């Protein structure tokens, strides 16, 4: 019997992952032979210079894009060859997303956006989920904003709504791609603290792509990518150390 990712305490795993765009002279290698496992309950940051393949890695692990070579698991489900319909349902039930921008459906109010994953699944939140949502809304300071449409909210508020949406379904894994990229440092820190807190107190697994050392310093584990390969796998460390390492990476390049 094959060893399942969960036997290793992993919530997601890729093995020998490669992603190539185009062919011939114009071909681009976005990822090359990447193997890694994300541990359940951990807050993992994925760092690297621009163009190093962070977003591509995240898209493939989240079932948004397909791999050129290698295998991908989410939980114990191998998603490498999963058809679109099954992938969609899997994203809906088991993955949460926070993007850098354009996170919310403009025609739905804040609450409608938070509840959208439940609705897509054709159900209402259970009592526990409702309590979780109420708690999130309270903590995110959104209580008096629930009936507002996205265009009536500030960037930080929009990102907090997106964070609440991503956490509300208690997904196996929350993916965040530069979630603080469009925010000022104070609002950015608020969002990061919410993510870190969800991981600490609820054991929420989170994978966050970022190029900001301060953002990465909130994480339990930091993966560094360069030219489509993992070049370092570090435990929690300070923003200064991360910044120094990033600088040395860019000098080496």
């Amino acid at each position, binding site marked *: 019997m094959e060893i399942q990712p969960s036997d290793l305490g992993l919530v997601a795993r890729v093995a020998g992952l490669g992603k190539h765009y185009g062919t011939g002279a114009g071909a681009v290698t976005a990822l090359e032979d990447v193997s890694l496992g994300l541990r359940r309950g951990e807050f993992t940051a994925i760092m690297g210079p621009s163009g190093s393949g962070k*977003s591509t890695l995240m*898209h493939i692990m*989240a079932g*948004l*894009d397909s791999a050129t070579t290698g295998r991908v698991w989410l939980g114990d489900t191998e998603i490498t060859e999963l058809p*679109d*319909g099954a992938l*969609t*349902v899997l*994203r*809906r*039930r088991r993955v949460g*997303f926070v*993007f*850098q*921008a*354009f*996170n*919310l*459906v*403009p*025609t*739905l109010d804040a609450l409608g956006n938070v509840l*959208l*994953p439940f*609705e*897509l*699944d*054709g159900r209402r939140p259970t009592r526990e989920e409702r309590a979780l949502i109420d708690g999130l809304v309270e903590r995110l300071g959104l209580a008096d904003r629930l009936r507002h*449409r*996205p*265009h009536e909210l500030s960037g930080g508020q929009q990102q907090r709504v997106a964070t609440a*949406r991503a956490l509300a379904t208690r997904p196996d894994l929350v993916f965040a*791609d530069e979630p603080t*990229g469009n925010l000022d440092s104070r609002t950015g820190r608020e969002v990061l603290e919410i993510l870190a807190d969800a991981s600490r107190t609820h054991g929420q697994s989170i994978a966050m792509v970022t190029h900001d050392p301060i953002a990465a310093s909130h994480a339990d584990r930091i993966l560094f990518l360069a030219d489509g390969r993992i070049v370092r796998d570090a435990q929690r460390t300070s923003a200064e150390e991360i910044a120094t390492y990033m600088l040395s990476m860019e000098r080496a390049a």
Partner: protein
Amino acid sequence: MIGRLRSGQGPTLLVATIASAFGVALLQVTGYLGSAMRADDVTGSSGTAALMLAIVAWVFIVIAVYVSGIVTANTVATVVAGRTRQIALLRLLGSTARAQRGAIAREGLAIGAIGAVLGLVVGTLVAIGLAEWAAAADVLPRVDHAWADPVVLSPAIVAVLITWLAAWAGSRRVLAVRPSEALGNAAARSQEELAGRRGRTATAATLATVGTLLLLLGVALGLVTPLGVLVGLLGGVLSFTGIVLGAHVVMPPILRLVGRALGTSPSARLAAENAVRHPERSSRMTIGLVIGVTLVTMFAVAMESYRDLLFAATEDRPDLRAGIEQMVSATVAVFGILVGFSALIAAVGLVNTLSLSVLQRTRELGLLRALGFERRQLRAMVLAESTALTAAATVTGLVLGTFYGWAGAQSLLGSVQGEPLVILPSIPWGVVGVLIVAAGVLTLVASLAPSRRATAVSPVAALAIE
């Protein structure tokens, strides 16, 4: 850049061509009928008859041109809304808003001119074809007719002017684009679009109120004299103009109501919201259809009521009924075809605008896919959005048409039996059925292209930063 609005403007050319071809064909046919009547003038009244025909023809041409103007203005406005960023960038780099708007209007003029010429050719060929057919089938005698009558140029010229004017009107939003919008993300500003429409709303409300009062007066007068129909006609024209002018107030609540009827699934709820997210755009998308459905229904209801009255009066002469039936169906069919061209133009506009609206929502569709919307649900959403638009237009048109048709029949025929007679509206189920089927077909056709585009959007599109 902004001068090139070509994507999404193919339909504008189609609309200009249909409007011009329809007008030209109608005037050519009218002219040919005039020649035929002069050739066989026993009563010496061919001049008056030809004039009457020309007036009737122009009524239909004006309706078609009016609808084509609304459609073109809406198309241009939609394209401009989707290009806010680009326009803002050009403004930022120093281009003036007037220059950009001027470029759009000039392009409208060019498209209108091409459409007019195409329409001139197509319309004339159709008219010649019809004349040949009529002669071959012995419907009309073969007569000499000068097809190169300069009069037929007029609808083509009107089509050019209206396309130009509509492009100018539709591009007004260009003036409101601030250069800074190139930097931030241009959020939905539909609310703003609605501001500053007070004057138009007030005019619309006044027309609708005065018109309705006149219409009711006409109905009351009609109980004693058939001349009541003239007062009623004036009231009808005024009140309907009020409704069309006030479409931005009238249509959104109806769209919301219809949207609610679509159900509570996420696809249906989003579709209902999408149908009213740009109230001005949706109003213009639907009002052309409302005009078409209202006119056809009105005429059919009035004729049906007339027929029922005639049937009642000829209860002892069943031999006359076949003739009456034929006369009524022929009139309704001819009228339906003439109004149908306006409805066709409105339909082209609806299909195109829905397509553009979906195209402009790529990132939102990607977001929905990322969050777990299946392709099937996206298709359902687009279909529901299309349904909301066509259903709102059809229902509104059927209700208005039934009311106007009844009012017309009542004011014209309420006194014919010598004593006041209350006429109940007779519903022409055949015509209603045809309209509903046509609306259903339009719903499907309109959702085809956008739904294909929507399902092709990759969820990664939502994460990409422009």
